[in-house]
C-alpha cells in the first residue's frame, strides 16, 4: 500500500513538473474550448455541448493513447523501468499509479470545462452530473487500457507512435468528437459504430444534453468496461521492464483483442442502427438549442393579436422572450441576429387533416409507389418545407404512422411534428372501406387491420379505443357518411360514435368525425365528438347547429382544399399541379405521372367517379362563414393525399380559399395556428408566439393580413428552435 501511495505521490509531482503534461492536460483542452467556443459561437447555444464533448473526448483519447500508451514505452526505452525491475514490486503499482495520476489530471479539467461551459457559454447545468462523471471515468479507464496495451506490445517509440496514430485519428475524426457523426455519409456512420470513441461521444453528448443517464448507456459503458478490464489484464501480463525484451510482431494482435467488444458492438449496430439514429437525434438536439433573435418583424401571435414591430428571442428550442418595438442588442442577448424588417413572423402552420398513406398523385406503375418508411418522412419534410410545423394524420395505417411519428418526434428525421389517429372508425361498407378495393385480396386483411376499425357493438368500439389508447394515438377519427346516390356508403350507427367518444375522453383523446351531411353533423354533435371534419360539401348546415358546436367547444374543419380539388378535377382543370410550392415539394416523377394519368382513360374514369359525389364550394363557403359567425373554433385541414393534393403546401391554398370565402385573414391565420393546436390538445406548447412556447415559427415576406398569398413566400421555417435548412430537407438520409 505504501508503495502505491508513494508511487502515486511521486508520479503526481513528476507530472506537475512536466510542462508537456501540463500543457496537454490543462492548456490544450482550455485553448481548444475557447477557440472553438469563439469560432462556433458557443454563447449562442447549440455548439457548446458539441465543444464540451469534443474537449472531453479529446482529453480521454489523449490521456489514453499519449498518456498511458507512450509513457510505458518511454520509461522502458529510457531504462527507467529497469531500475524498478530489481525492486520488490510488480507492474501493478506502476500502472495503477499512472492511471490514478492520469485521472487526477483529467477530472479537474472535466469539472473546469463544465463550469466554464455554464458560466461563459450558458450551457444548462447538468441534469445527471454523476452519470457524466461515471461515464467519463469509464471512458478514461477504457482508453488508458487501450494505451496500456499499446505500450505493452510496442517494441519502440516509433512502433508505439505508429499504432497510436492508426487508432487515434479514426477515433478523433470518425467517432463524433470533432464533428457529429450525423453529418457523415450513411456508410461512414456505420463504420463509425466499430470505433470505441463513437460510443464515448454519443454517451457523453446524450448525458450532457440531459436526456440520458448512465443507465441508458449500459451497453457502451459495458463495452468500455470490458475493454478496460481486458486491456488492463493484458497490459499487466505483457508488461516488460527492459527494452531488450522484444515482443513478437504477432503480439500486436493483442490490440485487436482489446477492441473486440467494439467489433461486436459495431456488428450489432450495423444491424440495429440504434446508435446511428441516436447520433442523428443528438445532432438534431444541438441544432435545436441555438439562440436566435428575430428582430424588426411584424408578429402575428397566433391568437389574433399583432405586434406591428417586434422581436422574438429563441433559446434552447423555446421562445425565450418577446419584445415590442426595438429589440436589445443581439450580442448582449448572446444571440445570433436575424433581421426581419418587412416580414411577418407567426407560429408554424398546423394542418389537422391529411392522409400520408396516399401521395396526392398517381404513378403510372405500381412499383413507383414508395414504401411508407420512405414516403412518409419525405411527406413530413414537405410539410415542414411549406411552413407547416404540425400535422395531424386523420387516418393512416397504424403501425407505419406510429413509426413515422417516432422518427419525427425523436429528431431522427427532420419534418413536421406528427399527430396521429391511426385507423378510421367506420361501418362495414362505410366510407374508408372503399380504399381496400384497390388492395389485392391477399393483403386486404392486413390493410384493414391497420387502417380500419369496424365495431359492431359499443362494447367492441370501446375496446378498440382502449387498444388504440395503449398505442398512444393522439386522437380518434370516426366517420358518419352515407355518401351520395351515385356513391353510397353504409353509415355507422351514431350510438357507436357516442361510445367511442365517451371511451376516448377517458384517455383525454380528442375525437373528430368525418361528416357528409347535416344529419351526420347533428349526430356527431349529439355523440359528443370534439371536432367536425368537412361538415358538409353539399348541405347547408343550420346556424343553430353551429351554435351548439360553439357551445360544446367543437371545432370545425371545412377542408375547402379538397372541395376545390374535386371540383377542378371534375371540370378537367389541373392548374393546381403548377403551383409554385407544389412544384418545389412534390417528387418530379410523381407530378409528371399524375399529369399523364389525369389525361389518360383511367384518369378520366377516376375523375368522372369523383363527379358523382356532388360538392359545392359555394355551400362550403356559406357553412364556413356561418360557423365563424356562430363563434365556432375553426381549424384548417387540407385532406392532402387526395388526388392533386400533394403533401406539404395545401394549407396555403386552404387559407386563400378561406379569404376568398370572406373570412378575415386574422381569423384564418388563427385557425391555422392556435386553433389547430387546441384541437391537437397541444395549445399549451405550440400555436402561439408566447414566452415558454416551442419555437415553431414561420417567417414570411410581407404581410399576410393584407395579402394571404404572402404565406407562400417563406423566408424561414423554425421547428423547435432549429432554423430549418429547407434546401436540405429532401436530402435526408
Amino acid at each position: 500500500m505504501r508503495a502505491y501511495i508513494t508511487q502515486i505521490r511521486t508520479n503526481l509531482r513528476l507530472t506537475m513538473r512536466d510542462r508537456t503534461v501540463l500543457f496537454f492536460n490543462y492548456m490544450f483542452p482550455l485553448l481548444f474550448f475557447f477557440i472553438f467556443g469563439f469560432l462556433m459561437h458557443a454563447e449562442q447555444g447549440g455548439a457548446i455541448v458539441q465543444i464540451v464533448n469534443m474537449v472531453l473526448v479529446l482529453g480521454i483519447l489523449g490521456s489514453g493513447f499519449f498518456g498511458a500508451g507512450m509513457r510505458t514505452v518511454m520509461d522502458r526505452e529510457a531504462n527507467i523501468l529497469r531500475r524498478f525491475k530489481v525492486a520488490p514490486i510488480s507492474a501493478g503499482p506502476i500502472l495503477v499509479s499512472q492511471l490514478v495520476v492520469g485521472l487526477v489530471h483529467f477530472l479537474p479539467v472535466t469539472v473546469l470545462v463544465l463550469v466554464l461551459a455554464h458560466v461563459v457559454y450558458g450551457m444548462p447545468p447538468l441534469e445527471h452530473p454523476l452519470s457524466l462523471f461515471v461515464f467519463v471515468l469509464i471512458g478514461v479507464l477504457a482508453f488508458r487500457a487501450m494505451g496500456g496495451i499499446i505500450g505493452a506490445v510496442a517494441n519502440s517509440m516509433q512502433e508505439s507512435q505508429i499504432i497510436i496514430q492508426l487508432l487515434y485519428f479514426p477515433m478523433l475524426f470518425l467517432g463524433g468528437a470533432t464533428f457529429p457523426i450525423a453529418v457523415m455519409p450513411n456508410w461512414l456512420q456505420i463504420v463509425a459504430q466499430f470505433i470505441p470513441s463513437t460510443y464515448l461521444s454519443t454517451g457523453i453528448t446524450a448525458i450532457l444534453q440531459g436526456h440520458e443517464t448512465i443507465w441508458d448507456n449500459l451497453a457502451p459503458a459495458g463495452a468500455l468496461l470490458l475493454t478496460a478490464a481486458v486491456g488492463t489484464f493484458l497490459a499487466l501480463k505483457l508488461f516488460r521492464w527492459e527494452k531488450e525484451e522484444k515482443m513478437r510482431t504477432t503480439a500486436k494482435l493483442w490490440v485487436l483483442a482489446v477492441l473486440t467488444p467494439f467489433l461486436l458492438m459495431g456488428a450489432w449496430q450495423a444491424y440495429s442502427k440504434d446508435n446511428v439514429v441516436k447520433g442523428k437525434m443528438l445532432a438534431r438536439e444541438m441544432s435545436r438549442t441555438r439562440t436566435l433573435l428575430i428582430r424588426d418583424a411584424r408578429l402575428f401571435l397566433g391568437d389574433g393579436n399583432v405586434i406591428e414591430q417586434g422581436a422574438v428571442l429563441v433559446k434552447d428550442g423555446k421562445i425565450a422572450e418577446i419584445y415590442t418595438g426595438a429589440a436589445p442588442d443581439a450580442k448582449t442577448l448572446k444571440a445570433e441576429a436575424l433581421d426581419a424588417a418587412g416580414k411577418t413572423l407567426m407560429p408554424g402552420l398546423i394542418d389537422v387533416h391529411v392522409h400520408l398513406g396516399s401521395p396526392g398523385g398517381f404513378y403510372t406503375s405500381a412499383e413507383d409507389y414508395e414504401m411508407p418508411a420512405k414516403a412518409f418522412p419525405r411527406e413530413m419534410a414537405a410539410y415542414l418545407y411549406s411552413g407547416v410545423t404540425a400535422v395531424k394524420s386523420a387516418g393512416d395505417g397504424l403501425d407505419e404512422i406510429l413509426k413515422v411519428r417516432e422518427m419525427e418526434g425523436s429528431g431522427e428525421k427532420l419534418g413536421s411534428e406528427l399527430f396521429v389517429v391511426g385507423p378510421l372508425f367506420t361501418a362495414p361498407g362505410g366510407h374508408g372501406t372503399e380504399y381496400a378495393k384497390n388492395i389485392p385480396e391477399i393483403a386486404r386483411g392486413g390493410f384493414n387491420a391497420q387502417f380500419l376499425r369496424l365495431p359492431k357493438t359499443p362494447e367492441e368500439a370501446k375496446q378498440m379505443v382502449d387498444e388504440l389508447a395503449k398505442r398512444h394515438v393522439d386522437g380518434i377519427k370516426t366517420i358518419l357518411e352515407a355518401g351520395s346516390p351515385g356513391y353510397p356508403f353504409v353509415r355507422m350507427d351514431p350510438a357507436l360514435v357516442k361510445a367511442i367518444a365517451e371511451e376516448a375522453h377517458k384517455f383525454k383523446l380528442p375525437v373528430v368525425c368525418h361528416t357528409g351531411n347535416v344529419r351526420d353533423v347533428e349526430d356527431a354533435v349529439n355523440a359528443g365528438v370534439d371536432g367536425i371534419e368537412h361538415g358538409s360539401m353539399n348541405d347547408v348546415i343550420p346556424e343553430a347547429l353551429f351554435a351548439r358546436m360553439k357551445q360544446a367547444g367543437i371545432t370545425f374543419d371545412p377542408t375547402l382544399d379538397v372541395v376545390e380539388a374535386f371540383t377542378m378535377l371534375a371540370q378537367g382543370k389541373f392548374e393546381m399541379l403548377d403551383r409554385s410550392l407544389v412544384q418545389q415539394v412534390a417528387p418530379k416523377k410523381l407530378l409528371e405521372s399524375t399529369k399523364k394519368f389525369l389525361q389518360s382513360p383511367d384518369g378520366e374514369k377516376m375523375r368522372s367517379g369523383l363527379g358523382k359525389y356532388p360538392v359545392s364550394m359555394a355551400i362550403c363557403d356559406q357553412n364556413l362563414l356561418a360557423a365563424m359567425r356562430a363563434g365556432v373554433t375553426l381549424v384548417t385541414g387540407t385532406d392532402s393525399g387526395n388526388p392533386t393534393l400533394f403533401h406539404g403546401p395545401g394549407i396555403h391554398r386552404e387559407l386563400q380559399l378561406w379569404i376568398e370565402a370572406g373570412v378575415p385573414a386574422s381569423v384564418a391565420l388563427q385557425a391555422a395556428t392556435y386553433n389547430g393546436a387546441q384541437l391537437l390538445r397541444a395549445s399549451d406548447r405550440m400555436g402561439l408566439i408566447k414566452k415558454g412556447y416551442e419555437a415553431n415559427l414561420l417567417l414570411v415576406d410581407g404581410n399576410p393580413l393584407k395579402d394571404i398569398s404572402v404565406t407562400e413566400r417563406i423566408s424561414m421555417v423554425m421547428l423547435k428552435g432549429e432554423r430549418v435548412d429547407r434546401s436540405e430537407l429532401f436530402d435526408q438520409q
Partner: protein
Amino acid sequence: MRGIDFEVAPGEVFGLLGPNGAGKTTTVEILEGLRPRTSGDVKVLGRDPAIEVKALKDRIGVCLQSTNLPDKITVRESLALFQSFYSRSTDIDKLIDRLQLGEKRNAYYQTLSGGQKQRVALALALVNDPQLVFLDEPTTGLDPQVRLEIHSLISELRDAKRTILITTHYIEEAERLCDRVAIVDQGKIIALGTPREIQARTLGTSRVEIHTAQPMPLDVPNFEEAEKFTISDDRKVLNVYSPRPARTLPDLVKWIDQNGIDLEDIHLKRPTLEDVFIELTGKRLRD
C-alpha cells in the same frame, strides 16, 4: 552458463571478472531473481531466487548497469520512492550524505553528472539496508576520475563489512575492491580465489626488468629461483622471470655490481589478473 559454482561469505566482497558476454550479468540476474535458471541449485541469503523472488528482492540491493530515473525526480524523492517498496529502510538523509550527494539532495536527476548519477544508483542499492549488494559493472562508462570516486565509495562499503557481489571487466577494480574473485569466461569459472591466490596459482611469475648504462655480459648466470631470462639486442635491458622475485633480486643486483656495470633502472612486475586471464584463455580481457 555452463555450470558455475561459487559461494560468497557474509561480509565478503566477491568479484565476477570476465569479458563482455562472459555470462556475468546472466549469473547475477539469476541470483537476483530476475531470470530463471535452466538447471542447478542457487541459494541467496538462504532463499531460492526462482521461488522467493519478492522476499529475496526485499533483502538485496542492486545497482544495475545503465539504468535511469525520470528526469525531474529529485535525488531525495527517488530514494524515498524506492524505499517505499521495501520492508526495511535506512535513514535516507544519512545515506545521501554518505554518498556525498548532500548538495544535490533536491536537484533533479537530469541535472546530475555521470558520477553523481552513479552515486544515486549506489544509494538506491543501499536504500533497504540490504544484506547483500549486487553491483553490476558499477563503473562501466564512467571517466577515470569518477571511477576512482566510486571505488572509494565501494571501499567504504567493504570496510563497513557489507556483503557485496561485483561484476566487472576492469582488472584493477577486481584487484582493488574484491576479497575474492571468480574469473568467468564463456559461461565457466576458470579461476577462483583471492586476487593473490589466483596470481600465485598460475604459472605466471613476476618479472624483474633492469636497464643498464653499459651492455651486460653474455654469460648471464642462473639467479636464485629464476626460471628464465631474456636480454635485448643491445644487451642493456634484461628481463628475469621468477616466482619469488624477492630472492632473485639481490642475486641479480650483486651480479651487475660484480661486472662493474651501472644500474640505471629497475622494475618489478608482478603478474596481473589480466596476465592470468591471458594465460588461461589465450586472449585479453578487453579489446
